[in-house]
């Protein structure tokens, strides 16, 4: 430790103002603060500060995403070998390794491109590297289909970081969830790579699929009227879908981590589920087709609902920021997600669009909550006057 610290202290002068490598000082500082907590002490205000910082917060979210990521890797292998009919002959680690090798490049590309741009912007603006992308960088691969070309991941990530975040001023300033911006970008720019029946399962060149194989997600099938979902597999996550979204179980583990540490808003998670259930039940009551009759709770375990509700809707920057606002935001989000899913004929999934739409409205919801607070104060003043 001591040697490393000395090395950093020796390098420091050349990155400081006037030093040869000053143009890289944000990057240097980023690595320094990654390795060592800074030695700065409080100059004004409180003399003690909580040990929590944004690095800690973001690493908790990443921890919460680990189960979904690992399971996603396994499922990529599982779907692959299932499709070519070789599942029986493969061991657990072979299946996982196959998925790991498929998913890892996507993660590397996402982090490489995203952090590269973040570093550049931090340097241009002369501020510290902000930790926001640490989470976006893993979320982006998890909401992609496994067959997405790597260059698309790179383009989408660049679009998300630049247009989705940096133009607004960086971490904490963005309006929409950057990971969903990446997905929405690809969804509309290259729809054939992001939807349909053939993108969710990696078949591999030269491999033949077994008879009767369909790469369609349960949700796509349900939208087409085949609502006999294998509930258990959908909950565990052994179904086709985006890399990280399939396993409701793994996502629930993440939800427990987020709620226990207080990092993720349980209010948003609960109200999103409530909104979806209410809408689902209403649709059931007035069902005129098979998809509308799909039991409301089954919506929670198919598609990206659980993943979106736990990891994306709860993004503190793009969600509502007030307590009451969070309840409204989450509830409407759940309502919208199910309506887009069931009523709209174009795409079977509604979570991404519902979250982006509610991200847009979150400031409006907060505005009314804040106005409520203001009115209460005015009323108090006029009663007393």
């Amino acid at each position: 430790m001591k040697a490393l610290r000395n090395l950093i202290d020796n390098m420091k002068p050349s990155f400081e103002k006037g030093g040869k490598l000053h143009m890289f000082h944000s990057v240097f500082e980023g690595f320094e603060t990654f390795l060592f907590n800074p030695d700065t002490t409080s100059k004004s205000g409180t003399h003690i500060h909580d040990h929590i910082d944004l690095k800690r917060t973001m690493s908790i979210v990443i921890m919460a995403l680990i189960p979904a990521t690992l399971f996603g890797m396994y499922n990529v292998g599982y779907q692959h070998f299932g499709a070519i009919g070789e599942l029986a002959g493969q061991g657990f680690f072979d299946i996982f390794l196959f998925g790991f090798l498929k998913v890892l490049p996507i993660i590397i590309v996402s982090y490489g491109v995203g952090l590269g741009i973040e570093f550049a912007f931090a340097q241009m603006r002369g501020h510290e590297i902000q930790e926001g992308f640490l989470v976006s960088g893993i979320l982006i691969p998890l909401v992609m289909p496994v067959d997405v070309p790597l260059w698309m991941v790179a383009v989408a990530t660049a679009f998300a970081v630049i247009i989705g975040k940096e133009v607004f001023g960086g971490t904490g300033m963005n309006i929409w969830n950057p990971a969903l911006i990446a997905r929405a970008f690809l969804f509309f720019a290259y729809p054939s790579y992001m939807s349909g029946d053939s993108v969710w399962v990696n078949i591999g060149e030269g491999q033949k699929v077994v008879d009767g194989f369909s790469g369609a997600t349960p949700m796509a099938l349900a939208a087409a009227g085949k609502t006999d979902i294998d509930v258990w597999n959908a909950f565990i996550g052994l179904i086709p879908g985006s890399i990280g979204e399939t396993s409701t179980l793994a996502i629930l583990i993440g939800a427990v981590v987020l709620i226990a540490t207080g990092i993720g808003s349980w209010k948003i998670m609960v109200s999103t589920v409530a909104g979806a259930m209410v809408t689902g039940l209403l649709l059931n009551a007035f069902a005129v087709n098979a998809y509308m009759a799909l039991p409301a709770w089954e919506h929670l375990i198919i598609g990206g609902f659980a993943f979106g509700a736990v990891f994306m809707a709860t993004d503190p920057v793009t969600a509502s920021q007030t307590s009451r606002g969070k309840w409204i935001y989450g509830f409407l989000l759940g309502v919208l997600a199910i309506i887009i899913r069931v009523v709209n004929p174009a795409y079977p999934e509604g979570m991404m669009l519902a979250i982006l739409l509610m991200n847009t409205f979150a400031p409006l919801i907060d505005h009314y909550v804040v106005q409520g607070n203001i009115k209460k104060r005015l009323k108090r003043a006029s009663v007393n006057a």
Partner: protein
Amino acid sequence: MSKIIKLRSGLNIKLKGKADEVIEEAQAARTYAVKPTDFPGLTPKLMVKVGHEVKAGSPLFFDKYKPDVMFASPVSGKVVAINRGERRRILEVVVEADGSNAFEEFKKAEPKSLSREDVKEELLKSGLWPLIIQRPYGVVAQPTDTPKAIFVSCFDSAPLAPNYELIVSGQEKEFQAGIDALAQLTDGKVHLGLPAAGANKPFAATKNVEITQFTGKHPVGNVGVQIHHVSPINKGERVWTVNVQDVVTIGRLFLTGKYDARKVIALTGSEVKAPRYYRTIAGANLSVLLEGKTNQEVNERYISGNVLTGTKVEKDNYLSHYGSQVTVIPEGDEHEFFGWALPGVNKFSASKTFLSSLFPKKEYTMTANMNGGERAFVLSEQYEKFLPMDILPVFLLKSIIVNDIDKMEQLGIYEVIEEDLALCEYACTSKIEVQSILRQGINVMIKELG
């Protein structure tokens, strides 16, 4: 039976170094100072020069914009220095005590028998008026105002805060006289805030007051929080507050006719060898309190006040005017390897992201390290947990940052001062300087609206 108000938001920071309930006589200091910097917004005009002889109660300077308000020397002696800072701003007026204990003589009178004007005049002339603080803004009260009420919080919930029950017991008579004097200044009531638990011996029997009891975590003892729940401040209203020990000082003035600036200070913090209470005099040089009493093992930070709202001082600086506490903690100016990633058994945190949250009873040593770099507002609803008021702190702070006076007013800037939001600053993940932003906003309000 008095009303009990229960507050749910807040946090008790478990800091090591609570003072034992023992009061010792501190060694007499050689020099004493009155610091204009203790009074936000004050522009002092000097009334003495270096070399002038003063008595306890002799005015040293007055407020340029409220010329009636004078600031008095706490001891008798000779003015030995007028220390100035940038742009010749006066930082300290230092008096060397001559040990003769000479006092300026003021009127000795039962405050109840005096008129409002007489009480005011006595307080102004004796230099005790600055002990009365005005809300909104937390500045010295304007003598021409009549407040709608006067509030005194009889307990302090801040980390390692002194126990006023201990300090005031034995001085009930002075406390009552101080309350009686204050009661003359308002058409409303004098409100006392007491903790719901305990006997509250010196306070419970006080007459001429309205008592409200509070339970909850810090900042429950903050007078601003108590005002918010008893009689919130609306636009245009004025409320005054006085610290407990200052009520005693005011009472003593009326009972003896002297500005007797003795007070009890709690010396606390993890770096203090034997944390306890000391009897000293307002404005005393801290070296007598601190010399030889700290561990000296690490770089130490000396704070006049508590760790949330106090002022950083050097060992040979002076006690703050309103202060009842001195805290010593490690400076913490060291790098920590992977500090943000470690499980953190020894790191107290208001969040539940460190293993320390599994040990709720433990007390911790905390340093002045920032524990992270400053960021934009990222997390939401983090501040609300630490502010038991119906105020949206982040929105208020944002309105200050963009300098929107209407919004500041609408969002409740009249109801808070720095100490009320100090816990938010402590707990902030983004390390935002909440208190200094709030003071900026208050300064804008004072400048624009007066």
